Every structure is written in C-alpha cells, then in structure tokens.
C-alpha cells in the first residue's frame, strides 16, 4: 500500500485521531482524546489501526506508582497500632504491665505484638522480665509522641501523591513490608506521528474528499428482530399451519380437571403431587365444565363408565379437580379442546408454556415450551399413528431413518416413542405419541379415535440455534441476541 492508498483507507475516526497526534513527543490516550474530541475507546482503536498502517508510533510506558492498601488507608484514618500502643502506655504514666497496656490499647493481639516490637526496636520502651512483664518509656518516645514519625508522614504524602524525602523513603520500605502500601504498575500507551504520518496529514484534505475506503470498517448497525428462539418457534408454528393444524387456546393457568382428571390420571397418582407439579397459593379453585362431562369423567375414574374399562376404583373428588395450577403439560389444552368440541376429521396443536418444579440445569427449565396436538378421524388406527409420526420425522427431524419404540403415557394406549436419526444430532427421541384412551375421549363426548402427539421442540431449537445449554433458549445476553443470524427453518 502506498501512502495515498493508506490515506484513502482511513476512516473518519482514524483521520481525526491522526490529526491530533504530535510529531515531536509521545502523548497519552487521554490527551489525544481531548485534542481530537473523540471518545477514549475510539482513540484506542484508531491508534492501533494507525500503528498498523505505520502512520503512528506507539510506545508503552510502564509507570510504577505507590498507593496505600485498604489496611494502610484505614490505619491512617484511625491511627497506627504503634501510636495506639504508645498512647496507651502514656496514659499509664509511662510505665505499666504488658497486660494493662494491652487492655488499654484496645488493639488485637497480633497488632499489639507488632506495635510492641516496633516500640522496642525504636527504643521508645524498655522491657523488664519477671513475674509480670513491665514496660517503661525510655524518653526517646517523646519525638514520636510529638508527631515526628517518618512512616506516618510518608503515608500521608503517598495519599496526597507528594514527593517523599530521604527519611520518608526509608520509612516507605517499612510500609511496604507491613502491607500498608503497595506498588502498582500501570502500562500507559503513548503515541506520536511517524514521518509518513506527517505526510499523510498533508494528503488528507486532498485525498479524502475524492473517495471512501471501501475496505474500511464502518459503525455496526443492530437491526430490529425477534428473539432467536421465538423465530424458531414461529417456524414450527408455520409448519404446523401448513400441515393443516388449528391452534388451541393454551392458558398458563388451568384446572387440575384438564391437566389430570380429564386425561384419566387418578387423583392419588404421585405425578399429581407437590414435587412433580406447581400448585397455587392463590387463586385456589376454578370452575368445571358442563355437569354431564364432569359426571362422566367421575364415572370413568370410579368404574370405567360405559367405556368398557374397569376404571381406577376409587372415590373421585370434584374438589381436587377444581383446583387450579400452572399447566404442567400441553396435553391439558388438548383435553380442554376435546371437552369444548372438535371438528371430525380435525387437527389441532398448541405451543404452550408449561411449568414444573424441576432443578434448573443444562437440560431442565422450570418454565418451558411444549409443542403437541391431536388428530381426530373416524377410522384411525395404530398404523395411522405411525404414519403421522413418519410425517413429523421428515418435517421436523429431517430424518431418513426412523424407529418406533413401545412407550408409556398415562393417557394413551397404545403408546409409542419416535426416535429419528437427525443429520446433526444422530439418534434422538423426537417425540411421543399414542391413541387417547377411551376412558379419556368418551367422557369428553368424542367417540372417534384421537391420535395424540408431542414433539420435543426444545431439543430441535437448541440444535438450530447451536446451543448446548437449554437455559440459553431464554438468553438474556443482548450481545448474543444481536449477533444471532436469522433462523431459517432448513437449518432446524
């Protein structure tokens, strides 16, 4: 690059910084910022670029300064231990037992020992052994008591960043040793013009007007966009709409009736307990649907009603069914939809926020999304269930190979797990499905088979967004969000 090209390549920030540089002497970044009117961060960056283009010379200056430590500062504010020590002895009229001085001084034991050692070394006191250790002033303490103590003077000057005299410099060593002061090394970058830099300034006016540097960096623009995970969920939703599914209402709070009872989950079942689902302090209860439906659900639990089932054989309680709770799974909304009435044939889906009192870790959230739904048709069989899953495997898992495994859900029979060979993730459990039990569908007024399915959407989202930790689906990192690419479904 010749000089003209270099000048062409300068951004406006670089040009401003360049013009602020001195040819004769190195200057610090703050000074250059002041002269150029640029923010200090921009100056730092610009100087780096100018250095690479050999228009600026940069040198690092190491500056060693001495500052008081936290202990040093507080000692200076309160008084050094040796002063407290000597003052204590002074209050005892210059003579006293070690324990008396200790008590008077209100120092702790280590501080007191240090202070006594110092007093001895400076010959302010004499120590006499015996039954009790006796301490006594020597007369040399007077100067100290009058305030002439180099260590204190040195510390005050350090605080005010004043020059130390010879005696104080000696005392400084003591301060460093005692951790009252410390050395801090600061690296300061300084810059000045090179000869080319000087020529470049001259060229700036003429060259700069003609062209922009097309290679140069320009300020970053952050565009408006949806949260990456929301983009992914919107794609999944669009896919379901394409496949002919209708969206169901999916309230965050539901009655236990829909979350459990209508799904033929017995009321004493452990899955209904505290540890497995959230319960509410307030509100406590909600309403139940049409009495006819409630009566039939009750009968299904107690004796199977007319479904041909034995039922669970216990006394079903309306009060438990009325309790409200944060929805623990999306199937609650399928139950609500069936109770409210469905088209036959019909396809329904929900992408629902669900809640479970788990321990949050890389694969569990206490609040998460579930994608699931139902397909209702006159003569649907287990083979249709597999046919539906095969379609999902292709549409959602981009799978060429699939596998069906026997599975268990309390509300479906037969039940099946869908495993697929995902191009990126290998064999994964993509979802679960089954035919809703007659004890579930018939009390809700549906006579035809209902195929129920759920897809593990979060797993796919994590793959599409290239993240390993499920918590990142709800990422609160603005920089990461700003830098995410637009989520395209083919990447899923």
């Amino acid at each position: 690059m010749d000089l003209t090209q270099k000048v062409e390549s300068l951004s406006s920030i670089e040009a401003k910084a360049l013009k602020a540089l001195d040819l004769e002497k190195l200057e610090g970044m703050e000074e250059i910022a002041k002269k150029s009117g640029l923010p200090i961060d921009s100056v730092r960056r610009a100087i780096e670029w100018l250095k690479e283009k050999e228009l600026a010379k940069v040198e690092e200056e190491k500056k060693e300064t001495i500052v008081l430590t936290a202990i040093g500062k507080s000692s200076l504010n309160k008084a050094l231990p040796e002063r407290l020590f000597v003052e204590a002895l002074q209050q005892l009229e210059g003579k006293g037992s070690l324990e008396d001085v200790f008590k008077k001084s209100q120092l702790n034991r280590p501080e007191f020992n240090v202070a006594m050692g110092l007093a001895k070394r400076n010959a302010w006191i004499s120590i006499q052994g015996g039954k009790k250790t006796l301490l006594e002033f020597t007369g040399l303490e007077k100067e100290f008591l009058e305030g002439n103590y180099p260590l204190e003077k040195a510390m005050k000057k350090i605080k005010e960043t004043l020059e130390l005299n010879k005696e104080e410099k000696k005392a400084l060593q003591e301060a460093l040793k005692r951790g009252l002061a410390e050395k801090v090394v600061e690296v300061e970058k300084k810059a000045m013009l090179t000869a080319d830099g000087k020529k470049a300034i001259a060229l700036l006016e003429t060259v700069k007007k003609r062209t922009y540097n097309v290679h140069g960096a320009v300020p970053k623009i952050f565009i408006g966009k949806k949260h990456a995970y929301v983009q992914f969920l919107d794609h999944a939703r669009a896919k379901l709409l394409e496949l002919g599914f209708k969206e169901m209402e999916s309230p965050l709070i539901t009655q236990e009736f829909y979350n459990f009872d209508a799904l033929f989950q017995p009321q004493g079942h452990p899955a209904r307990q505290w540890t497995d689902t959230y319960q509410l302090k307030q509100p406590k209860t909600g309403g139940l649907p049409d009495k006819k439906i409630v009566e039939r659900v009750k009968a299904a639990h107690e004796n199977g009603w007319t479904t041909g089932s034995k039922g669970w054989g216990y006394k079903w309680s309306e009060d438990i069914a009325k309790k409200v709770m944060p929805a623990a799974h999306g199937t609650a909304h399928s139950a609500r939809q069936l109770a409210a009435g469905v088209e036959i044939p019909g396809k329904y889906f929900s992408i629902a926020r669900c809640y479970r009192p788990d321990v949050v870790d890389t694969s569990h959230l206490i609040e998460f999304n579930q994608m699931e739904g139902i397909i209702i048709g006159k003569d649907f069989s287990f083979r249709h269930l597999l046919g539906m899953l095969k379609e999902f495997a292709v549409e959602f898992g981009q799978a060429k190979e699939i596998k069906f495994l026997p599975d268990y859900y309390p509300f479906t029979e037969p039940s099946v797990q869908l495993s697929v060979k995902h191009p990126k993730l290998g064999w994964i459990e993509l979802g679960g499905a089954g035919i809703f039990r007659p004890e579930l569908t018939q009390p809700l007024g549906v006579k035809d088979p209902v195929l129920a399915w759920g897809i593990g959407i979060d797993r796919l989202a994590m793959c599409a967004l290239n993240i390993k930790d499920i918590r990142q689906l709800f990422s609160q990192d603005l920089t990461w969000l700003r830098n995410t690419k637009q989520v395209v479904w083919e990447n899923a």
Partner: protein
Amino acid sequence: MPNVEASRKDLQKLIGKKLDTKQLEEAIEFAKGEIELIEGDRIVIDEKDTNRPDLLSAEGIAREIRARIGIEKGVPKYKIRKSDVSVIVDKSVAKIRPCISAAVIKNVKINEDMLVQMINSQEKICGTFGRKRKEAAVGIYDWSKLKQPMHYRAYDPRVKKFIPLEYRIEMDLEEILLEHPKGKEFKHLLEGFSKFPIFEDSKKVVASMPPIINSQLTGKVAMSTKEFLIEVTGYKQETVNTALNVMVSAFAERGFDIYSVKIKYANKTIITPDFTPGKITVEIDEIKKISDLDLNTKQIVELLKRARYDVKVKGKKLLCEYPAYRPDILHPVDVAEDAIISYGYNKIKPKPIRISTKGSELETKKFKRACENVCIGLGLQGVLTFTMTSKAKQSEMIGFGPEKEQFVEIENPVSEKYTVFRKRIYPELLEFLGKNKHASFPQKIFETGKTLELKQGTETGVSEKNRLCIVLSGKGAEFTVIKGVLDAVADNLGLKYELKQNTEPALEKGKSTGVEIASKKGIVGELKKEILQNFGLEQPTAVLELEI
C-alpha cells in the same frame, strides 16, 4: 421414570438365553425399557411404564422377555404351597389401614444380586404403584425370628415400644414418627389417628409399624436368612394383593418356595398370595381395528400368548387371562397394545393420514405478530423472559409497598426467584438491561407475552392478558421519544388511544402518562432515577407497556 439396575450376568441367567448387546437391547424394548447404560456387568434400564410394577425388577423384565422372544408362553404358573401360618387382623386397624396380604418364602438362597433386586424393587413398587407407600407398603422379615400366628392391630402410640430399623434404642410409636427419618418422611400417612398399626407375632414381638418402619430385631434380612415373611398393607385388598404378587412372583422366578398365609379378618378369611389370573374379554375386531394389521385369530392369540396371556376363543371374542401381577389392564385397548408390541412396532407399515383440514391460528396470535412486526420496523431487539418471577421485582423494586400488590402466587416454589406470575413485563426488561450494561448503547428492546392477574368470576380465577412492552435505554430515551414510539405503534396498528392517569409509581411525574385503547390499559414514560438504580441502571430509560 424409574431406573432398574441389574447385573447383566444375573439378567442373562434369569432370561435363560444368551443375548448379545443388540439382541438384549431389542428384547428390553418389549418390556418398555431402554438401556441407559452398560458398563461391565452393570446394566441400567430406563423403565418407561410406571403402571407396571412387575417390570421394576430384573426378574420381572426377564420374565417378560422370555415370553416375547418365544422361550415360554402364557400366564406363568407358580406353585403355591399351603401353610398353617395366619395373620389375625384386629378391628382396631379398620379405620386406619385396613388391608393386609402376606406370604412365607422358604428355600431362600440369598446372593447379592437377588438382594439388590429385592430391596430396589420393594422401594420402587411402594414409590410408584404404592403411591409413595400410601396404597401399598411392603415389609419383609426374617421368619425364623417370629412365632405364628401374626397379629395386625393398632396401639396407643405412647404404650407400644420397639427398636426401629437402624436404631439401637427402643422408642415409642410417637417418637418414631417424630425422630426416625422414615417416621418424618411418612408420618402424614398416619395423621389424625390416635392409634397406629403394628404388625407383631404371637409373643407380641414387633415386626413393623406399617407403613412406616420395620423392627431392627426381626425386620431385617441378612445374607444368612433362610425364610422370609412378606406382608403388604394398604386400603384396598386388590392393591395389596397385586403388590404382594409382584414381590412373591419375583422370588418364585428365582426358584424359592412360596407358602400361602391365611388372613383372618373379623368377618372373613382369605388366603394370600392369590395368583388367580385377571380376566378380560376382548372383541377380535377391536384388536384388528386398533392395530389395522392383517391378522387372523390364530395369529392374534399367538401374539397375546407371547405377552403372557392365556387366551380362549369364543366366537368373535377372546376370553383373555393375564398374570395376577399386572394391575395395568383396565380396558381392551391395553390388550391390543400388548398384541401390537408382540408383533413388533418396527415391522408395521405406517399408513399416511389423508384428511383435508385447514390450518389456522388464534386471533390473539395474529395481532401479536402484527405488534412484533411494528417493533422490528422500529429497530427493536426482541427478548424473552419468564412469566414466573419474584414478588420484589414486581412490587418493591418498582416503587410499590410490599403488601400493596396481589399476585397469582405459587404455593410450592423451588426458588425465591420464581414465586409469582408477572403482572407487568417492564420490570423483567429492566432486569434484562441490568444484565447487559456492557453491551453497546442505545439499547432498544421489546417483548410480547402474557401477564397474569387475579380475577374472580373467570374460569380459573385468573385473567391472562397479552401485552407488548418496549424499553429504550441510553442517551435520548426521553418522554417525547417514547411517546413517539407509542404514536408509531398506534398508527401502524390502526389504534386510537386516550390519555389517562398513570398509576405506576416507577414513572417520573410530568414525564409519563397512562393510556387506554378500547378499555385496554397501558403506560408510557420515563423511569425514575431511583427505580433505575434498583436495577443497577445508570442510563436514562423510558418504557411503553400496552395490553394488546
């Protein structure tokens, strides 16, 4: 879903046929299990069917596999020997925990594998099928230390004493409930009763206090134990019988001898274990219809025998008998699934679904999307926060007194951070900004989502609202700018708003206002400095939140 741990060698021996890892994996799928881990001799199986207590042990899984791979067929026949042992049930337990079943096991050959299976399956059966011991609690005793007949009766908790398992001192029943770890864990099962059940022998030597804890002296099985007494208590005879059958049949699978016990209730005597098979009648056409497979009756019968059913064909019906350890068969669909599993899920040709339906989404979702599009047009970054949050963030930190605000509130939170549902979105977005002070400014973010309020008279006692929240932070985030955003949002969505009194104490007076759009409320304005400080924010920040 419970994990079943086993020694692979032990499992192989129980199956009675050598299977390589792949074959074993496929065989275990028949038992609704998935291999989680194979490590040397250790194998961990994730058992998915929580309604099959018989599959919670290596013995049970092996038994299921033996039939599915064709080594055996039909309901297993166990030899039950008669004994003169009886359990006398006193009336005093009738209201507390009325039902009991029991068996004596002899010719016991204990080894470590067997012991692990026994202890683990006992615990899992009580936990799942037994509904955490409520419906079924199992006790196993060293029979040589007890003298028959056994008695099941209730005692005053202060009068009766014994040494509970893992303890050295005698405690009365009250003390056990208060102090023993198992007492604390399960004391709710005896809540409200003035007497507690005791299972003891003819000499009043205590075996256990069902469903809480065994005695240290008699209720402990050692490697040297030769004979067991096993007992199950609960509220329903059918349930305790099934649990007993599951446990006892696992012993039988290992070749131990099973002896029956007479249970003498005040008004009747029954004999347990009762291995009379369960009965269910299924229409052949129903299995054909559900499975949609081209099968004749003979083939269906064969598939069911592989699922351990005994089947008689009667006209168009199948009279099915299933093992007495299976509580999960309620309806013909359960039988149909067993037939299909025997057939093999992956041998079935899927049938495409050919129905014509029209996809559609909720109106609220459509409007939400329109709002999001406007936000994108405004150059805002979408964010996503949780709907569960803390009370402090939704009240004190935004200037409300601690008791002023009522929320939809969680009864059993797992973290202080998530105890209520949010009523507004903006405090969550302020917290978001607080986490991103290092990111470049200005920061302009939005979220659309639900907020919850208590409301009587609704179906769930809750009113769920969809809201849009926009927060601008950085130089120039002033009232005039955020009101400009409000105007842009309103114009582009074709909405007209009216100005109302602001009710949010977080907003600066004179630089904020309430708004209302067709009786839906909102706020717009600058946030007070002290509110920003609560979230660690230094830059000027303005907010717009609307119900949409």
